[in-house]
């Protein structure tokens, strides 16, 4: 921030755990066909219903903690957090209170290429509330409980960020970490991750924290950056004008580009936390935690080093690979096999293939189900048994077909056949070309070696692009040089 003021930001990030069923009920977490179509009696808080914790949610929450270097508590303690709201079916949220599952970790991230560390205070497991829909009926709010009970972790950082850019970068990295851990799908559009930011400002040099405001509804990296930036300016002006800052919850209004105080939150909250008597403490054995730690995948900071520094992939290719863990899942072993293959494959996917897809307004993600088939195409091309022209045709045929299905690409590849790599077939063609262009041969021999491309182009055209380029080049070279004698 300009002038002598410093921004102080801590993040509270909610991430939906990638489970099949909800945290305490068997209701599916997948997109339902309509409002209130993924609701069990428990989700609706019907009398007599009881929670039973989903072991996979516990496992994913622990892995999130381990991936962020947290301590994992040896017992899971769930607590009731009481407040009344239309979309909170039981009148309390099952969450954790003073004994979160994970605590004291850190997030490593890059800011303008420089390594940074954000301390993580805690990660706790909790259930989501339902959704209040305000525009379905005039003058009324309609409650949809499909989301009620969906498993979340809340990751709370210490107020260790000092700029809006740092806040956005930390959130972005946290998203990648959770995605690579397989904890959360990382989708910001569908609300799988939601970011709140606690923002305060203080004169530079001041060591105590001033009153903070909690910003809600920061649903994109841009929103984090812009909201924190706006709020910091607002607070600075409030302090400078002598008005001061009141602790409150504020909503980011992306359209208006400003934060505004939330209504209905003015009560000083007294959540009356208590251990949930329906959920006795559950042991989290140390050996189990150790097993989870041993099976953690490589995380983005390490992957960046491996892909960028060790394999030498382009920076934008690294970023694209990190943004989709499923890509790495399939490509990982191939990329790591040797650096040249890795660069070639990245160039193929993010250059050649992405270009073909872009013309059809498709994203790389659309063809991911067929990734292995695409890798096979790359390998054929790289081995020389598919020419550039043939590759282009194969990719276009695939992209115009049922591109999400591997068979589409396999068929396109099979239809392309193979390059002509039979020397006995290519040699007569080359001999004919040399005989037909004596002037050019003469010029080549007197040093105009650029004409090599001229001969290659003629040969390729003559073979309808199907010649094995490497073989053709070798034969052509030999023929041109040989006729010099």
């Amino acid at each position, binding site marked *: 921030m300009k002038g002598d003021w410093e921004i102080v930001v801590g993040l509270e990030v909610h991430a939906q755990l990638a489970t099949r069923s909800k945290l305490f009920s068997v209701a599916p977490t997948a997109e339902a066909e309509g409002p209130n179509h993924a609701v069990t*009696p428990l989700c609706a*808080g019907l*009398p*007599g219903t009881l929670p*039973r914790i989903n072991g996979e949610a516990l496992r994913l929450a622990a892995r999130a903690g381990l991936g962020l270097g947290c301590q994992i508590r040896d017992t899971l303690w769930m607590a009731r957090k*009481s407040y009344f709201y*239309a979309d909170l079916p039981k009148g309390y949220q099952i969450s954790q209170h003073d004994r979160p599952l994970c605590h004291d970790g850190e997030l490593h991230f890059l800011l303008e290429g420089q390594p940074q560390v954000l301390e993580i205070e805690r990660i706790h497991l909790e259930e989501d509330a339902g959704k209040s829909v305000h525009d379905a009926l005039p003058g009324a709010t309609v409650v949809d409980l499909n989301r009620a009970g969906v498993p979340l972790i809340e990751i709370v950082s210490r107020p260790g960020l000092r700029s809006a850019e740092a806040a956005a970068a930390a959130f972005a990295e946290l998203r990648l970490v959770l995605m690579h851990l397989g904890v959360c799908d990382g989708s910001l559009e569908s609300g799988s991750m939601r970011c709140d930011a606690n923002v305060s400002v203080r004169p530079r040099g001041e060591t105590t924290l001033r009153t903070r405001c909690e910003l809600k509804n920061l649903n994109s990296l841009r929103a984090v950056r812009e909201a924190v930036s706006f709020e910091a300016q607002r607070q600075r002006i409030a302090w400078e004008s002598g008005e001061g800052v009141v602790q409150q919850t504020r909503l980011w209004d992306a359209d208006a580009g400003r934060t505004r105080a939330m209504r209905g939150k003015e009560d000083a909250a007294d959540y009356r936390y*208590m251990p949930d008597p329906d*959920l*006795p403490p559950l042991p989290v054995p140390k050996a189990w935690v150790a097993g989870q730690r041993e099976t953690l995948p490589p995380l983005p900071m390490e992957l960046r080093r491996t892909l960028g520094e060790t394999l030498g992939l382009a920076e934008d290719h690294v970023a694209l690979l990190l943004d989709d863990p499923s890509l790495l899942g399939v490509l990982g072993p191939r990329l790591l096999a040797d650096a040249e293959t890795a660069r070639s494959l990245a160039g193929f996917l993010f250059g050649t293939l992405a270009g073909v897809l872009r013309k059809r307004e498709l994203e790389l993600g659309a063809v991911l189900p067929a990734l292995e088939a695409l890798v096979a195409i790359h390998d054929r091309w790289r081995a020389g048994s598919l020419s550039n022209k043939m590759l282009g045709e194969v990719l276009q045929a695939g992209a115009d077909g049922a591109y999400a299905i591997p068979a589409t690409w396999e068929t396109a590849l099979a239809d392309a056949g193979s390059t002509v790599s039979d020397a006995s077939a290519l040699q007569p063609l080359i001999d004919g070309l040399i005989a037909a262009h004596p002037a050019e041969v003469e010029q080549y021999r007197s040093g105009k070696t650029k004409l090599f491309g001229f001969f290659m182009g003629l040969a390729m055209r003559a073979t309808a692009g199907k010649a094995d380029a490497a073989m053709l080049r070798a034969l052509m070279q030999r023929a041109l040089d040989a006729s010099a004698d």
Partner: protein
Amino acid sequence: MSRETPPMGVLATAQAIARGEQSAEAATRAALDAADAHADLGAFVELDADGALETARAVDAARARGEALGPLAGVPISLKDNIAARDWALSAGSRMLAGYRSPFDATVTERLRAAGAVLLGRVNMDEFGMGSATTTGVAGPARNPWDAERVAGGSSGGSAVAVAIGAGAASLGTDTGGSVRLPAALCGVVGLKPTYGRVSRYGVVAYASSLEQVGVLARDVDGAAAVLAAISGACPLDATAAPLPPFSPRSSDGADAAGLRIGVPEGFVDKARAADPAVAEAIDAALAGLRDAGATLVPVRLEELDAAVAAYYVIATAEASTNLSRYDGVRYGHRTSETGLGLGELIARSRTESFGDEVQRRILLGTFALSAGYHDAFYARAGQVRRKLANAVAGAWDDCDVLAMPTSPVRAWRLDQRFDDPTAVYAMDVFTVLANLCGLPALSVPVRSAGDAMPIGLQFMAPAFEEATLVRAGRAVQAWRGALPMPTGGPR
């Protein structure tokens, strides 16, 4: 209202039906007739005569076809109105749940059906189980079958009355602080509260989750044990249900008192003596009878009994204050008819209109005990007292197999008796809350009344999952005591 022959208990009914000596339909009709004949006692909130007879005829048909019958085939059993049965109304005695129908069965309901039991209907209770007399429910009071001007005890008063009058061989109640045992004692039937976790709570309208269990009221100890065997066992829907096989009563547990070490906590009987000497005399006589039959009476010191009531009410109301937060008039239950209210007002108005006074008071106490500034001194401290009591009781098992004490300090009090403050009624739970706080099984068995006809119960507590020991102690009392008469009715 006396009868020539007392109605048959659970085992006798099941046996008679299995042998073809009686049809399930006849047993069911007899139970329904008894309910109708004593409708003025307020045992039932709703009878499902059609459903019950349909089930009974299905049992008879299955038997006629030679099919294997469940252990409770044809046995008529009623459910406390806080235990869900699919498509039945479920009110928990509250105006809040007027018109509510459960779309699912409680686990215990499902298990009763699987065992072949005939479900008679819903029986009366205190609102959300909050009471010791079955007087706070929306259906009005249940009346004591021995004297209709007296209380039946609560909160499972409807269950106790139904069993006492022969409207079913057994009834499922719930016991949060004595709600099965107290009415059983006051109405002269057997009440069994299992170990916490022995029976699934899924489908039971929650009052205080860490304290309550579904319990059984029956005419005799073996009847209660047979029903417990049918409803107990691990449940995938309840994280507090112990991962253990169902309770299995053993005939080898014996019926005699010989060798049984009965711990008698010092001062407990005297506490009853101060409140109602007849209770103390009856308990003394029963213990002497058991000693004569070969039991050893072991004096035991258990302090802080008064604090147990305070700890119980703080913990129970704290849990209740959150358990009852779901009643907000949004998804089901009563919603105020007033218009123009905001959401917050709508919730508060709906709750205030439909919760009774006692429920409101308990929600207030529980909310207070959890609120900022008071949480540690009340809720947390109650948990510490609970731990201390549990440790003390655990220490007693070195010297005895069961603890014995009165179930209630007094016999059934008059319905018109006024209590100056709510805590005067809470004192009736002084002997029963201990088992709930510790999560231990307890049994109330009727003993002979020393003075007038009003029943008195002797209570046993046993170590966790030692219901079999309770059954043995209960059988010993029955052997010493002999058969009981049917309720005499009394002035109305």
